[in-house]
Each structure stands twice: as structure tokens, then as C-alpha cells.
């Protein structure tokens, strides 16, 4: 069965510092991995995805994520955090032939000025 773990409920960083939001996954076969962001009282917005190829994936708003097959991880990163990055971040995974995307519980990111 597919599963996603986001081990941190909350991440706090200072503006201008690098940020990392962690995600590990379990899936049979090749994983298809996604990051979404949810701003207050809004729906989710797609940030980036890994399907195949280069392990470093670049996405919207300066975010990137690194796929690590041996560690079954897909951590979200940004070199320099902005206060406006404060939001709820979800990691998600799909397996081959699957419609049933599994989402992590979410990590709340607070960026302090």
C-alpha cells in the first residue's frame, strides 16, 4: 500500500534562511511524487513533481525538491525563505497505474521576519 510521511508538523525558519520540508514515501514500483501548498482559506496549489529523470526538480516560487530513491525521500527546499512562504505544505505520491493519490498530513511552515 502507498503511504506518505511528513515527520514534522511545523517548521520554523527565519526570513532569508534556507528551508527544508521533509517527506518520505512508500510505494510499489516507481513513485510519482508531488508537492502542493495551501495558503490560508484557499485550495491547494501545485508546486512541483517528480516523474522520472533528474533527481532535482525545480518548481514554482523558487522551490525545488530532491528525489532520493535509496532513502525513499522527496524533501522540499528553498535557498532563501520569504515571509510569504508561510503556508501548509503537502507531499503526495502516486504509484504506477494509480488514480488514488495519497497525501501526507501536511507541514505548516512559519517564516519569521
Amino acid at each position, binding site marked *: 500500500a502507498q503511504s*506518505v510521511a511528513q515527520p514534522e508538523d511545523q517548521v520554523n525558519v527565519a526570513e532569508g534562511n534556507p528551508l527544508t520540508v521533509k517527506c518520505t514515501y512508500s510505494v510499489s514500483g516507481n513513485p510519482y511524487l508531488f508537492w502542493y501548498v495551501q495558503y490560508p482559506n484557499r*485550495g491547494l496549489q501545485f508546486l512541483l513533481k517528480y516523474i522520472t529523470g533528474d533527481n532535482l526538480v525545480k518548481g514554482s516560487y523558487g522551490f525545488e525538491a530532491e528525489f532520493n530513491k535509496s532513502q525513499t525521500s522527496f524533501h522540499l527546499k528553498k535557498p532563501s525563505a520569504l515571509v510569504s512562504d508561510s503556508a501548509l505544505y*503537502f507531499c503526495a505520491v502516486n*504509484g504506477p497505474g*494509480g*488514480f*488514488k493519490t495519497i497525501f501526507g*498530513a501536511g507541514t505548516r511552515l512559519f517564516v519569521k521576519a
Partner: protein
Amino acid sequence: DAGITQSPRHKVTETGTPVTLRCHQTENHRYMYWYRQDPGHGLRLIHYSYGVKDTDKGEVSDGYSVSRSKTEDFLLTLESATSSQTSVYFCAISGSGRAEVDEQYFGPGTRLTVT
């Protein structure tokens, strides 16, 4: 935002009453999904559709039914609402080809309270 609307945006209903939530898209996407969002659980898939009149269950489908009679509309019905169905409901769409590799686009959500 992608062309996805949900109605109503807010609803309060009583236990035991039926409730229907509507998702409407203008993107002509093939796949549509209903999720519920609850604290500590992230998003959980209720039902999905892979075409007109083609639907299937997700991980938390008990107590819910869906219908899709047109490409643009996906209805979620709570047959007899219970307090455990108090949640925020999101519709999503995707649809260029293979569902498992496509990102999803989400509607604004419906906040449902069952008293």
C-alpha cells in the same frame, strides 16, 4: 486558479439529512476527484471519476456517493449526513493523459458542518 468552482462554499446541515456538493470545471479535464481535509489527516480521497458516468471509490468512501453525467460536473452526495462528515471538501481535476503523473488542480473548497 484553474476553472474550478464548488457550490455551496459553506453549508450547515443537520444529522440525517442528505447533502449534495457540486464541482464544476471549465477545463474539459477528464479526471475529477473529491477529497476531504481534516486536521492531522491531510487530504483523503473520497471518490474519483475517470470519465462521464465512470466513477470509483477512494479510501474514505463510506457514506458518500457521486455522479458525473457531464464532463464538467461532479456531484458528491452525503446520503445521510453524520457529525463525522463535518469537514472541508475539495474537488480537484487533472487530465492530460495518465492520471498518475498529472498534477491536480483544486477548487476553493466547501466547508460543511453537520450539527
